[in-house]
Structures are given as C-alpha cells and as structure tokens.
C-alpha cells in the first residue's frame, strides 16, 4: 500500500501513531506520576525485538514444525548457496547472513496458513508485553530507590547500554547492528502496521483518559507532587510507581511492535535515544504534561512542523553551498529545539495544561452539598 496525501505518507503516519503510543505511555509515567523515564527507547525496542530476533525465529519454528519438508529443503538450498552448515530453519532465520534470504519464505508460509499466522501474532504480542514487563521490573527496582535526577540518568544509561551496546554488538540476539528482518503477518505489511497502530493508539488513548480521570489518576498526581504527604495519607508510593512503570513499559513496547511491522528491516540503532526518548519528551513538554490530549497535540504539532521543514527546506537549499545544504538537513532538529525553548519560556505548562482528574462532574457534586 502507498498512501500519499500532500506531503504526508503512510510511513509518516505510522511513525506518528507509534509516537502517540509512546508519548501517552511517557505521560502516565512522567506527566502523571513524576517518574523521569529517560530510557523509553529501550522499552520501545522490546516490541521490535519481539518481532525481529524472537519473532522471526518463532515463525521459523512454526514453519519447521508444520512444513518440515519445505523447511529442510530450504535449509539445504541455503547451505549449498552460502557454503554454510545450518542445522535448522530456526538457526538460519536467526543468522545475519541467511535471515534476509529465508525471511520472505517464512512470510509466505505464514500468509498461506492464516490460523498459524494469527496464533503467532498473538504470541508475539504477549512476548512484547512480557519483555517490556520484565524490563519495567528492572527499571522500577531503580525507580524505588533513587532520587529523580539519578533515576533519569540511570534509565538513560541503562537503555543505551542494552540497545546500543548489548544488542548492537551481539549478533545472536537481534542480528547485531543490521538487525534481523522482523516477522510479517500480512502481505501488505504497512497497511497492517497502520491498522494496528491506529487501533492500539485509540485503545491506549481511551485507557489513559479513563485512568487519568479516575481516583488512580488523582493518586498518581499526588505521588508526583509530594511523596511524603502521599505516604502519610496511606498510599504505598513505591507500589504506585511500580504499577505505573509496568503498565507504561508494556504500552511503549507496543509502539515498537507497530513501527517494526512498518519497517521490518529496521536496524537496531533505529531505536536510539533521540528518536524514541528525547522526541517523546519534547512532544509531551510541548503538548502539556499530565494531559493526554496534550500528548496527542504535542506529537501532531511537532511532527507536522518537522515534515514541512524536512520537505521544503532541502528544496530551498538545493543549488546552494554544501554548508547551507548541511544546515538544511539539520534544521528540523534545530527548530524542534527552539520550539521547546519557546514553549518552556512562554507556556511552561504546555499547549494544553493539566486538569483535575474528572472522576465525575465535580461542580455538580459540590452543588449537591450546599
């Protein structure tokens, strides 16, 4: 599929949807609960890994099990072609050399077996959530013990360590820097990603709005504002943080799953701190912390503006000196930075400021107790 309207494409749209999901998740942590999660990229990456390194192997396992003849034939052909000695399709699917060759065959197998395809999708979804929850547990171990500033730095370095060092340097996990091709579930993978992204964003938005306007939303904001006072009024601050980190981590990983389905051949470094941590923070600060609509507005304003800059500025710079072209290439980042500074200066609460948790019509309840 190839959607194009004006200067916006389907890949842009899927990125925006992924950003909705991550930014809403960050809002639950940072906006509502005051947890400075600067390691979002890691949690997003868990969704990608579930479909890449883990997903493609699982898919190969399915194929090996349900179509052993074709599978061994494929491995044999591969071995003679590459001069390798793969023992199984799973091994081939997980190796950097053979992954790109066998992946399309595995896709075709899945497309031809819809029941297996759907089962695998559900398994990958669960793996995504499970990996994210496990990482969330590790992160909350730190979150319950460290002061805000230290926690921010720790999560940032933890994310860098896991994605940039461990995953990027170890071929066996996710194919090293190049990344393994992710499993695809539908022949038109971008259409699939678009629908998945739209459904998940919508569900996450509804969830975040409900939670934000529930007694839990009020408690999260109270924990953020004064953890001592929250504890004195009976709230288990550590437990509240833990729950929020767990659920937010799982949501963030779904964004990674959506994104990797649109770009199954994405490299490991695609999941870097700038794109998946700093940008969501920028969206949130711009749109308004502790306001879910603000998070959406932040993503939209930012991404539309960025698209304009990236589309028109290089055209204007064409034919000029190398220095100007270089500047044009980086202009979107510069503008993004400037925008944040301006917002922080003139409207520190963001475009849409925080609102009370609307558990019910507060003014109506107040009227009743005249």
């Amino acid at each position, binding site marked *: 599929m190839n959607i194009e309207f004006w200067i916006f494409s389907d890949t842009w749209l899927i990125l925006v949807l992924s950003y909705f999901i991550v930014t809403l998740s960050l809002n639950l942590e940072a906006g509502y609960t005051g947890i400075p999660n600067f390691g979002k990229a890691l949690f997003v990456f868990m969704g990608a890994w579930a479909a890449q390194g883990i997903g493609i192997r699982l898919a190969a396992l399915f194929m090996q099990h349900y179509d052993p003849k074709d599978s061994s034939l494929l491995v044999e052909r591969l071995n003679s072609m590459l001069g390798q000695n793969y023992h199984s399709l799973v091994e081939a699917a997980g190796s950097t050399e053979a992954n790109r060759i066998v992946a399309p065959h595995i896709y075709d197998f899945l497309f031809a077996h819809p029941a297996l395809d759907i089962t695998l999708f559900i398994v990958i979804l669960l793996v995504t959530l499970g990996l994210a929850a496990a990482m969330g547990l590790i992160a909350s171990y730190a979150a319950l013990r460290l002061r805000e500033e230290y926690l921010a730095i720790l999560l940032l370095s933890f994310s860098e360590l896991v994605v940039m060092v461990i995953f990027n340097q170890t071929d066996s996990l996710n194919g090293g820097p190049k990344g393994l091709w992710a499993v695809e579930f539908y022949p038109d993978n971008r259409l699939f990603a678009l629908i998945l992204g739209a459904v998940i964003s919508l569900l996450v938005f509804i*969830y975040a709005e*409900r*939670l934000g306007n*529930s*007694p*839990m*939303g*009020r*408690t999260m*904001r*109270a924990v*953020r*504002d*004064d953890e*001592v*006072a*929250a*504890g*004195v*009024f*009976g*709230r*288990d*601050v550590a437990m509240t943080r833990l*729950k*929020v980190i*767990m*659920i937010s981590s799982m949501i963030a990983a779904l964004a990674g799953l959506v994104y990797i389905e649109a770009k199954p051949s994405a490299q490991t470094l695609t999941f870097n701190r700038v794109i998946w941590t700093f940008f969501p923070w920028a969206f949130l600060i711009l749109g308004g912390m*502790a306001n879910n609509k603000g998070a959406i507005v932040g993503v939209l304003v930012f991404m539309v503006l960025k698209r304009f800059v990236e589309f028109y500025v290089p055209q204007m710079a064409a034919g000029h000196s190398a220095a100007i072209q270089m500047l044009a290439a980086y202009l979107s980042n510069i503008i993004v930075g400037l925008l944040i500074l301006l917002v922080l200066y003139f409207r520190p609460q963001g475009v849409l400021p*925080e609102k*009370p*948790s609307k*558990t*019910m019509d*507060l*003014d109506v*309840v*107040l009227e*009743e*107790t005249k």
Partner: protein
Amino acid sequence: MVKNFGALKALDRVNMEIPRGKITLLIGPNGSGKTTLMNIISGVYKPDAGKIILDGEDVTNLDTHERFRKGLVRNFQIPRLFQGLITLENVAFARYGNPGEGVISGTMKRRWFKFEYETLKRAAETITFTKIRHLWDKKPSELSGGQMKLLEVARSLMPDEPKIVLMDEPTSGVNPVLAHEIFQRIRDVNRKRRVTFLVVEHRLDIAVGYVDYAYAMAFGKVIAHGEPEAVLNDPRVIESYLGG
C-alpha cells in the same frame, strides 16, 4: 525517644503516653521538638532510639502508609499540599481506600463510583466547614497562607475511622472565630467517634478550653504534663517560654 540532627538533640529521651480517647495538648517554645516528635510518630523520620507503640502494637518499623492504615493520621505545620491538585482533590485524596486506585480498577468506573461520590461529598462538606468552599477549584499556589492552613486542616478531618490524629498548629494564621470552630470540631470528632487527638498549639487561650490533658516540652525534653491548667501554670513551663 531520641532524635539527633547532627549535634542537635531534637528529642532527648522523650517518653510520652497519649491518653486514649482524649484530646492532649502539646506545647513548648519554638524549636523545642514538637514537630520532630510528630514526624517520628507518623514515620516521616526514623528515630535514633526508642519505640512507638500504637494501641499496644509496636509500629516503629512501619512505613508512613502502613501507620496511616493502622489509624494514625496527621497534618503538617507547614502545609504540604499537592501543588497540581485543586482544593477539592487535595481533600478528597485524604480519604484512603478507594477501590479505583489501581492501573486496572481505575478504568472500571462502576467499581469505584459510589465510594468516589461519597468521598467527594464529604470533601465538599469539609471544605464548607473550613470556609474554603469558594476556593474548591483553585490550586494551592492560588491560596493565601491562612487558606492553605485551612486546607491542611480539612485534609486531616477526611480519613475514615482514625485512632489518633496528630494536629500540628491547626489554627495558626486562622481568625479566632474559626479557630474556636476548629477546636469545637476536634472536640466533636473526639467525643462522637472516640478519636484520640494530639494537638500542638501556640494559641493557648483558645486551645485550653477544649483539651483534656497537656504535655510541655523544652529543648527536646518533656518538662511537665498533667491537667492543662496545671501545666500552663507550671513555673518551669512559664520560664521556658520566657527564656525562649
């Protein structure tokens, strides 16, 4: 009870028994350790030595939230309000036990609607009593010092079934008429719901008419205790105030 801040002996072997079901007044000059004691009893600070026994149970090693759940409620002398929450929310939050306080249960409105409705109604009544109802949708930063204090008092009147409430200067900065009303309310809650109170108060003229018992502290020590009138007229107490 012992608590040191560096070389400062904020609490120097303080031993206190707060009579159950009574209102106990705690007085003492500035810096004598009254607030420190409240921080220790509520678990905000850990003592260097000593034990806190609540209703026969040793709670010294419990966290603040666990002590609250055992029925220990307190307010703060210097208001510690939730800056992002409006007045009504600040007060509503002080009631614990809402079934909707979970990342899943929060989304199931049917489960918490009733509790929440009762909570908000009670919060509305409480701020009506403390005369800040008209400020219900304001954030703490929009309130005056006295109004913050009234909000702080309103919060400590919200919890269900407390065993003991620690009040640190509930009427400072409050006009005398309302100060009397607050003490009247403390008295009502005490008499009707058998709640024990420990009240720190500098406005002795107002407080003395409502309390059953009194302790006086100076320099981190208990210097007198007994009938309120007797404690107030104790020469050591008078001297500590004049000297401080």
